[in-house]
């Protein structure tokens, strides 16, 4: 575990970052029994006293509702359903065909997204370049981190390679490096590129590269962990251990087998020994190199892995060790469960997890094969709506479904920059988790009242075009009305089909009536107050629903 922004006061964030976790309990079925009561005739009488207003819904069939499998694919392997993505899947031949195509991201044109890199001046600089700027500029490390977060959010929202973005986020969170950790930001972009390169490849190759990447080594202190050899006057060599166990431990506990595998403290020590040798020329060239004299030699044993480890060049031992860990059954179980929890539900069946673990191992840790097995499992399509969107997924989905387009930012308030502050306001800054275990991924974690209030703020400020208000083009309010005049209940159904990919429910229609004091039979035109003044409240509320906040 790593302290944030320690040792370099220059890098301290002006406002700090916090992350919202509330692993509060699910009160399942708490109040499900209170449906079906007599319908009040008007909104004015209801909801304050606990009687829901449930007017009958009408269907606006001109706006299609996507097949459940399309919605599921769009919400799990892209950053949220939009009517355009639904059409894209249909054109591709259905969600499965779309998914297969997404497995080959190189074949998908994505030029618009490529341009995002030029929007942020810190992108593309080398570690020495970063450092020389940081020496002269307070807060530069924070700038690098925020820009990287912004760039990531832009890609998540607008890339055509949605699956690649989703999997890059997943693996970045699994092999997590805290974005604000001291010095790791110097190589952050390269670390991201490494994860991205392997995100749809093989886990064993990703683990090999990530473990010895500068960002990871520095984050978990491994480049400082070494032995020192000194030759005495009599010619004998004295070895002093300067071992730091941080990466050796987390490699086992978090990145691969997990504590359930039952390794001992001695084996944690051996894990740290194996990692010695990789060194960064800190505060000088910043170059990574292997220094054999810093490598601990002597027999090592971790679980079923043993090595004589007699050579001062321990790189081959490390490669073998990482290979052993990547292919360990306990690793397969953990990765399988993590994928199932991420893409299916918070409580995946053992059957699904075991199946994915088998495919993962049998395929030699092939990620494409494992994901394909996941979407082919019946549990995948049966799990629609069962996941709580994380706060940043909610932010991304909000901009996507509102059809907002961002332009190159010129100031902090411009949308492509303020996106970072919006993420912060909902309690989940990209890569902003201090500890090496990565953001939690379950509904309990992301359901605190604070998250709800933060998400309401984002939904309503974007629905109203109030924040961000610059560097962004929103759909006009008028454009949401699909024909010159329309009953309010049909209009709400159209909005639900567009925003949620689902028909309106009586509960939602009733709440929509309440929030803007309309009745289902009101005839809505461009001059009606619903379009002219109250649309932000209406669309904001439709985003404040379970339909939008779950996936």
């Amino acid at each position, binding site marked *: 575990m790593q302290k944030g922004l*320690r040792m370099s006061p220059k890098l301290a964030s002006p406002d700090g970052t916090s992350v919202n976790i*509330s692993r509060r309990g699910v009160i399942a079925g708490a109040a499900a029994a209170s449906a079906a009561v007599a319908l009040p005739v008007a909104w004015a009488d209801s909801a304050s006293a606990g009687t829901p207003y449930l007017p009958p819904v009408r269907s606006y069939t001109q706006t299609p509702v996507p097949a459940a499998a399309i919605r599921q694919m769009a919400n799990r392997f892209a950053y949220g359903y939009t009517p355009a993505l639904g059409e894209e899947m249909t054109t591709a031949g259905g969600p499965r065909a779309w998914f297969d195509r997404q497995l080959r991201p190189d074949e998908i044109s994505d030029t618009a997204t490529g341009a995002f890199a030029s929007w942020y001046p810190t992108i593309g600089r080398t570690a020495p370049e970063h450092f020389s700027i940081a020496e002269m500029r307070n807060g530069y490390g924070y700038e690098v981190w925020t820009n990287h977060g912004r760039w990531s959010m832009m890609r998540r929202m607008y890339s055509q390679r949605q699956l690649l973005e989703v999997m890059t986020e997943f693996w970045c969170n699994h092999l997590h490096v805290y974005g604000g950790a001291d010095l790791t930001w110097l190589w952050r972009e390269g670390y991201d590129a490494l994860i991205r390169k392997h995100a749809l490849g093989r886990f064993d190759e990703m683990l090999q590269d990530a473990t010895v990447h500068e960002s990871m080594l520095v984050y978990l202190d491994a480049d400082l962990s070494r032995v020192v050899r000194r030759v005495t006057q009599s010619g004998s060599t004295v070895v002093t251990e300067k071992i730091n166990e941080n990466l050796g431990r987390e490699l086992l506990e978090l990145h691969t087998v997990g504590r359930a595998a039952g390794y001992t403290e001695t084996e944690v020590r051996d894990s740290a020994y194996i990692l010695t040798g990789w060194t960064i020329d800190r505060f000088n060239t910043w170059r990574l190199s292997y220094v054999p004299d810093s490598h601990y030699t002597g027999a090592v044993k971790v679980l079923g892995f043993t090595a004589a480890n007699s050579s001062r060049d321990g790189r081959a031992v490390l490669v073998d060790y990482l290979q052993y860990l990547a292919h360990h059954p306990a690793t397969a179980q953990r990765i399988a469960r993590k994928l199932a929890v991420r893409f299916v539900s918070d409580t995946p069946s053992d059957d699904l997890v075991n199946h994915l673990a088998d495919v993962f191992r049998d395929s030699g840790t092939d990620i494409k094969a494992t994901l394909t097995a996941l979407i082919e499992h019946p549990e995948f399509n049966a799990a629609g709506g069962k996941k709580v969107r994380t706060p940043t997924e909610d932010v991304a989905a909000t901009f996507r479904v509102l059809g907002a387009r961002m332009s190159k930012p010129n100031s902090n308030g411009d949308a492509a920059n303020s996106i970072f502050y919006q993420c912060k306001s909902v309690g989940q800054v990209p890569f902003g988790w201090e500890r090496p275990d990565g953001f939690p*991924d379950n509904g309990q974690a992301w359901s605190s009242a*604070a998250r709800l209030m933060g998400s309401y703020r984002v939904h309503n400020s974007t629905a109203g075009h109030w924040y961000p208000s610059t560097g962004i083009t929103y759909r006009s309010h008028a454009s949401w009305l699909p024909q010159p005049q329309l009953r309010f209940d049909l209009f709400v159904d159209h909005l639900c089909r567009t925003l949620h990919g689902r028909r309106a429910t009586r509960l939602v229609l009733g709440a929509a009536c309440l929030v803007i004091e309309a009745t289902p039979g009101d005839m809505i035109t461009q001059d009606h107050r619903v379009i002219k003044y109250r649309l932000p409240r209406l669309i904001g509320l439709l985003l404040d629903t379970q339909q939008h906040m779950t996936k």
Partner: protein
Amino acid sequence: MTTNDCSCTDYADSRRSFLRNALAVTGGAVATVAFGETFRQTAYGATDGNVLVVLSLRGGADGLSIVVPHGDPDYYPARPRIAVPKASLLVRDDLFGLHPGLKPLEAMWTANKMTAIHATGLPQPNRSHFSAVEEIEDADLGSAVRTGWINRLIGLDADKGPLEAVTVGSGLLPTSMYGPEPTLATDRTENIQLFGAQDDAAQVQRRKALTQLWEDAEGPLGLGARSSLATTATLGPALAQRYVPANGATYPDSDLGLALKDTARLVKARVGVEVVTLDYGSWDMHSGLGTLDSTGPGSMQGMVSNMGQALAAFFTDLGVVGDRVTLVTLTEFGRRVQENGATGLDHGWGNATLLMGSGVKGGRYYGRWPGLGGANVDVDVAVTTDYRSILSEILASRFGTSSSAVFPNFQPQALGIMA
């Protein structure tokens, strides 16, 4: 927290089923407040009752740097570069002295309102951050039912008041708060509102609409949404006014300072705060722990100084209200006796606990000192006082709570730290 660990999924399941069965239980609400790196949770109880503040030093703080065993012959040899010099220590006795960064608290110590207990912690070593935190905060070791000790504490309360929790922005709910009692989170009090309405009339309608949407919603989002509705209704107006600390208290401009200032405000607002937990850290100083000359915000010197200033401001601000408030520090584990190759400290075991405020028999050090035992690299400080004994004594003294209800299957040892 290894939420994706196989073991944790079992735990989530067992907890969920536990909660289903525990629905009949309601009690004081719990709020979570987060200020950047500092997180705070608040449990609401009786309006003028005693208050316990639990300051969690996240990441495993090094007790040997905070309560320094200068009289142990192995201390200075084990830490050639990072030991705290004897001459700099505060309130020294033959064995111990406090880190000079705690200078602002010296007056509390000499007024016998503050103490330190050494060689405290979990009964068995656990060097994993994630599971050690869960063990400390669940504090019912070995039990399959996962509720935190604070949740159990407030569950004992006869006061079954409505949800009255402060919640803004973000907050980390520690294991100590897990359980059937509702919980909330916030980072800035001014954010306690249902954003999205432009005037009072619209606000009324928006509340009705959100109430309808979420009133019967299943799952964690429903609970969070209902908590946000309750919080904004009951606490929002009270917190809308500007807060000025009393008695000339000056909080440091840090996350901890802000969080403690807001805690003082809540205690003084008499909304029924009973337990507040704050997370302050990270203290996970594997490298570059620093010396007294290292004043960076993440160094030991920077962290301890910030803590000393913030705690002193907190008790100054509370004034007479402080007669209701007791504060204790916890951390998941101590660190190794000997410094590592990176002038840092790897994960260890035993630690030191700071205790201050109302009811504390302070002005001296407590705990049986086990000695540092030879100072080779793998030596930990052995634990001679289970941290649950400390909490048991505080709870008995301040809340009249029996230890067994909060720490089942545990026999506390009498320490005599509380009046």
